[in-house]
């Protein structure tokens, strides 16, 4: 199966192992009937047949990396809850809004029961007594599919009291978001779930596993992370780690958008598939559109520093991407070909983060807006050379020190590894600067061209008039 499915726009299947997208080929993949006919809720049954701590150990030994952006292993995260403190909650982060990213939306729309099953396994293993499934407000279809799936699952005895006749009882509450990118940050998500403005909480504590929802231990997991658990329970950690590499086992979903021949969401092999495979191989994107040249690409969502062809052979492995000056983030690759106006492209991302700043930290609230305004005037041909220095100065006030960037053989620069230092509580502020910094480091001449052109016009006009 290499095809695309009309009922799953954007998703492109392939002859690769599938852990989370195995049901996408079915038009009725979101129904309880199809789910039960394809091993549905069997992972839950397997989990409930074992002691909770054994299930937790299985997830730990599989090293299921968080798929939301930070790549923190789920089993380890669950283990950070303080001993003997109850109740503990599970909050599912379905507020997917990182530019370039979409996989959680497909998982919620196409296979909501798989997610529900994953939530139940997590609750069982970590002793979480209630689950809140926070879905981004703008995803109407995902909300409807998950609501319908929950209604069916409750009626059939898979969710709620005495699940499958056992002493395991847990409610899953579908919660609506209402449009705020920053709520994807886990402490902001918790604030929002408590009925407040979605502003990230001051750290420490660094993990809501210690102090989270209502001050209780709370696990926040990404949709795709949880969607891995049913397969893992059915097939075991050994089978899971047989796919991918030791440090990045399993698969991951990646959305590739922009100037490629076949943009799409692919389930790829973690740690092994390289950016070159993904962008150029026929089974994936099949190369740059119109036979054009690759100019740059964003490897891990709008917040990630940019790569160019020099980094194409890096596989999807966090530490390697980090050493090269960026991150894999949320599994979103945005590709720019030779026709791209780089400063204008950077502006679309900086504008996003400036707009989405919650306003809590001054460097982000003020700095993001400054970056957007200065960059706008450069893009509009009204900038000066001093503006370019000003961009870096503002960026440095958000993230002190050298900001991570990729190496570039042609420019003779070497990489500054990830991560950055930051003067803000969360990653929104630094993310406003990431595209500006990458664009300036790798394509400074494009900014200068916009400025020089502007400067020459009035000079010529004045000369001609005299």
């Amino acid at each position, binding site marked *: 199966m290499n095809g695309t499915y009309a009922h799953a726009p954007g998703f492109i299947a392939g002859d690769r192992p599938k852990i989370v997208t195995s049901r996408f080929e079915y038009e009725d993949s979101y129904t309880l009937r199809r789910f039960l006919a394809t091993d549905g809720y069997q992972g839950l049954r397997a989990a409930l047949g074992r002691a909770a701590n054994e299930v937790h150990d299985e997830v730990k030994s599989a090293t299921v990396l968080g798929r939301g952006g930070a790549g923190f292993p789920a089993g380890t995260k669950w283990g950070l809850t303080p001993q003997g403190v109850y109740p503990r909650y599970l909050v599912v982060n379905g507020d997917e809004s990182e530019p370039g990213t979409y996989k959680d939306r497909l998982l919620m729309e196409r296979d909501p029961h798989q997610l529900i099953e994953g939530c139940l396994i997590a609750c069982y293993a970590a002793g979480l007594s209630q689950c809140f499934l926070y879905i981004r407000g703008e995803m109407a279809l995902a*909300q409807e599919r998950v609501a319908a799936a929950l209604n069916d699952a409750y009626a059939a005895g898979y969710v709620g009291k005495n699940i499958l006749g*056992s002493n395991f009882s847990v409610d899953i509450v579908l919660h609506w978001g209402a449009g705020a990118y920053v709520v994807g940050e886990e402490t902001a998500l918790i604030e929002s779930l408590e*009925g407040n403005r979605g502003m990230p909480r001051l750290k420490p504590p660094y993990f809501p596993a210690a102090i989270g929802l209502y001050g209780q231990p709370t696990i926040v997991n990404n949709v795709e992370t949880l969607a891995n658990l049913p397969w893992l329970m059915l097939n075991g950690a050994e089978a899971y780690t047989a796919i991918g590499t030791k440090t990045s086992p399993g698969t991951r979903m990646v959305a590739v958008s922009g100037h490629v021949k076949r943009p799409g969401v692919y389930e790829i092999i973690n740690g092994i598939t390289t950016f070159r495979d993904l962008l150029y191989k026929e089974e994936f994107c099949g190369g740059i559109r119109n036979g054009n040249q690759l100019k740059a690409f964003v490897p891990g969502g709008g917040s990630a520093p940019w790569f160019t062809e020099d980094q194409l052979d890096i596989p999807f492995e966090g530490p390697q991407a980090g050493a090269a000056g960026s991150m894999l983030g949320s599994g979103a690759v945005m590709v720019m070909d030779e026709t791209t106006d780089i400063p204008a492209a950077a502006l679309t991302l900086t504008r996003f983060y400036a707009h989405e700043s919650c306003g809590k930290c001054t460097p982000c609230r003020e700095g993001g807006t400054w970056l957007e305004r200065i960059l706008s005037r450069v893009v509009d041909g009204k900038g000066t050379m001093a503006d370019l220095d000003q961009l870096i100065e503002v960026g440095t006030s958000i993230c002190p020190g050298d900001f991570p960037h990729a190496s570039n053989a042609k420019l003779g620069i070497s990489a500054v590894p990830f991560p950055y230092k930051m003067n803000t509580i969360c990653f929104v502020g630094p993310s406003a600067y990431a595209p500006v910094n990458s664009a300036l480091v790798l394509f400074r001449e494009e900014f200068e061209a916009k400025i020089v052109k502007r400067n020459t016009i009035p000079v010529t006009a004045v000369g001609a008039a005299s």
Partner: protein
Amino acid sequence: MSRFTEDNARLAKEIIGRYPRPRSAMIPLLHLAQQQSGYVTNDAMVHIGELVGATSAEVYGTASFYEMFKFEPVGKYLVNICGTMSCALMGSEELMHHAEHKLGVKVGGTTSDGMFTLEHAECQAACTEAPCLQVNYRYRFRVTPESFDSLIDDLSAGRLTAEIPDHGTVAKVLQHIPADRGVGAVPPESVTEAPAWLNGKAAL
């Protein structure tokens, strides 16, 4: 006017009952208010405050943080054109210009007949299908000027009412937890012990 109707007040109480603390229902109730009136009215915020134990100022404080809540009437159809990177790379700026021309309003404006409000949206999580837009949060992918025109014509002629509800209704299917199946929410302070299944034995 515009406090919750009797049916919605009942639904509001059901929603509140799912959370360990009532205030957590704030955003779902704001959606319910918007569904009832097309936007969030002051009276609805007062009512929500009464229901969840917050002042109306606190309700407004939360509501105004979130993009989806509107505090004055908008068009029957809210047209959100994505302008973030992947869509921008695939021509969303031209699409926005075209939309402004077709609808005869600038971005942010509402047509004089109250049918359409045009907005610039940030990433809608459909980046491979760029440029994309949402009408009342229902997707349209790889939108061209031609397909935009026919979308607007279809909406104007009422041909898409089955698929796209009026502004305010996000999900047409809502969660309902049957009384005999739900565990029920309790305030966190009333739980002190580990859940029953954490006793080292298999649950099944």
